[in-house]
């Protein structure tokens, strides 16, 4: 009796999982990750401890000592490297080998779509990602043992960012494998896109117009939102749209029996639909500040007042986007305003500045003008403490701030050298042991008992 599609998918999934677990590449990646994460963690703890020593002497500096920025983001930098440079090779191998050794020709004859076949690979890659979490969990435990403070919402946000980043990278690798004739070409295509995002991030950091749009959709920029502890629905949607775009592209182009014209038409349709979705998601609101120090939010009373500003708030900026003052203004004020003010319009005045190090010819350079309901205010400040009262004054609102306990920081002087044994020796040995055990016949039997 023929199997149902669900039964077929289960058998295929188990086979793909076995295929991955038997691959030396996976265990090599895990060992490399363990070493890199360990090194990053120990370095981060050392630097954090040095900064904490000063902060313990000067309590006003302690507020700047938060484990997310000081420990977890630098440590997860190792994940960024592995996800960008090594993770794609697991999926390249998984699909590329099927293509090269002809297995794909057999699989394509099953009553399953290419979407289902790729979906199975993606599900198997989810297991890889769970294995990748082992060093991350070790970091959290080690930090806890050292006496460090952990605010789980920001750690989970960081992990979610890396999960979405990995998903997108895997889908890009899938697409590259589907369209390329050989594995080296697929690898070059995939790294071209992922490293391209990296370069884009450097090259267009403060770009305007289409460069800004491109940069906003770069994977590195999207991941940075999560690294900063900001959970935003547009960013999640952007990651999912990119992943879906490449996954659908991979599924359309995987089948060698489809006419080229049909593949191109389907791809264009997918791109059009996802472009519309992208436009839609750029209009999405929905931000949650997951940080312990609420670094992405104004005080709640200010937020409530700003949300009441129903008329357009026009801010004219007499600064070039490359100016460090603009960076501070954007980071401290504008980015937060964008998330709460219903109608915010930013205008860059013609500053006639000759560049980053050139003197401006304009007397008004550095000025920020605020206009609301026909009234105007201006300031040279980029601090929310000065700007927020101006805005409330424009809106005719009196704001009384709630008494909140301010974030006092979590400085910690610790010695993480004990973690070396775990990250450099025990964890790699455990991975080696697991790799060796899985080669034994009694492990990884086929998922159903024999008939």
């Amino acid at each position, binding site marked *: *009796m*023929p*199997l149902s599609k669900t039964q*077929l998918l289960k*058998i*295929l999934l188990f*086979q793909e999982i*076995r*295929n991955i677990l*038997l*691959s030396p590449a996976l265990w090599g990646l895990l060992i490399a990750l363990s070493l890199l994460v360990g090194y990053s963690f120990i370095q981060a703890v050392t630097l954090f401890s040095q900064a904490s020593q000063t902060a313990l002497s000067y309590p006003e500096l302690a507020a700047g000592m938060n484990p997310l920025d000081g420990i977890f983001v630098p440590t997860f930098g190792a994940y960024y490297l592995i996800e960008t440079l090594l993770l794609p090779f697991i999926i390249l191998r998984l699909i590329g*080998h099927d293509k090269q*050794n*002809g*297995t794909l*020709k*057999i699989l*394509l*004859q*099953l*009553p399953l779509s290419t979407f289902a076949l790729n979906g199975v690979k993606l599900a198997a890659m989810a297991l890889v990602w769970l294995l990748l979490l082992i060093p991350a969990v070790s970091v959290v435990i080690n930090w806890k043992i050292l006496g460090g403070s952990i605010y789980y919402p920001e750690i989970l946000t960081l992990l979610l960012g890396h999960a979405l980043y990995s998903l997108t990278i895997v889908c890009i690798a899938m697409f590259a494998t589907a369209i390329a004739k050989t594995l080296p070409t697929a690898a070059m295509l995939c790294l071209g896109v992922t490293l391209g995002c990296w370069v884009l991030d450097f090259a267009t950091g403060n770009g305007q117009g289409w460069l800004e749009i491109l940069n906003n959709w770069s994977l590195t920029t999207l991941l940075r939102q999560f690294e900063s502890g900001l959970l935003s629905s547009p960013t999640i949607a952007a990651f999912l749209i990119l992943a879906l775009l490449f996954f659908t592209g991979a599924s359309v182009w995987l089948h*060698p*029996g*489809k*006419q*080229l014209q049909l593949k191109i038409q389907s791809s264009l349709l997918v791109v059009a639909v996802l472009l519309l979705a992208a436009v839609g998601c750029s209009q999405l609101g929905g931000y949650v500040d997951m940080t312990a120090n609420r670094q992405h939010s104004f005080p709640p009373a200010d937020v409530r007042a700003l949300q009441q500003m129903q008329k357009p708030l026009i801010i004219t900026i007499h600064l070039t986007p490359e100016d460090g003052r603009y960076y501070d203004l954007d980071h401290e004020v504008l980015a937060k305003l964008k998330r709460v003010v219903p109608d915010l319009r930013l205008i860059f005045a013609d500053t006639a500045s000759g560049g980053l190090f050139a003197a401006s010819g304009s007397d008004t350079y550095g000025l920020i003008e605020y206009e609301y309901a026909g009234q105007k205010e201006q300031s040279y400040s980029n601090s929310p403490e000065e700007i927020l009262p101006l805005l409330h004054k424009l809106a005719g609102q009196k704001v009384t701030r709630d008494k909140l306990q301010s974030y006092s920081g979590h400085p910690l002087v610790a010695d993480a050298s004990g973690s070396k044994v775990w990250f450099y020796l025990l964890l790699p040995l455990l991975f080696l042991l697991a790799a060796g055990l899985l080669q034994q*016949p009694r492990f*990884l*039997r*086929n*998922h*159903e008992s*024999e*008939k």
Partner: protein
Amino acid sequence: MAAPEEKELFRADNICKHFGHQQVLTDICFSAYPGEILGIIGPNGAGKTTLMECLTGLLPLSSGTIYWKDQQITPQQVNPFIFYLPDGVLPYAEQKAGQVVTFFQQLFSAENQQLQQLLERLELEPAQEKRVHSLSKGYRKRLLLLIGLLSPQPLLLLDEPFDGFDLRQSLKIMQLLRETLSGRTLLLSIHQLTEAEKICDRFLLLNGGNVAAIGSLKQLQEQAKVSAGGLEEAFLALV
């Protein structure tokens, strides 16, 4: 052996395939009947593999139609009826042969008894613990044949099934194919004429992407006007 008078199981009409400006298959027409072994015979580059891949939807057809029991179907709809086993496939090369065999047994929902029988007949048991990539050419071929024979579809397309076997092994495989067919139809792509003559009921002679002739050995001899010799003489006279 089936007679062409029987109701045809499968028919291909005017199958054409071109890669860019290069015409690879031109107006290929043939039928296959229940239980018969039809050999697609031709020299290397005749278009045998391309024809098989076009019929199973693994390559897009340029033009042509296919029928299953008089019902027109597209190559994307052939999966329930036709299984094609390409030549030189090395499925899941890093896994043990036994694991791969069990995987395909599950995938094709084949009975354990059938699998054991095939393992014995193909003498694959000693290779079960070896990884697929470390198998010899002969064992790899036997593993592929086992996968093909486990498949449930009524029409089985095998690409160069005897390539890599010596004469004695080929004869054993031929006997096995005959015995295990049990009503299935076989389409074999073969370039060795001696083997083809021994196993096939009918022959589709392909040359340069065209059908040179089709029929039983006797019919081919009649068309070629050769009374003596075998398939080789008929083939040379017709091509």
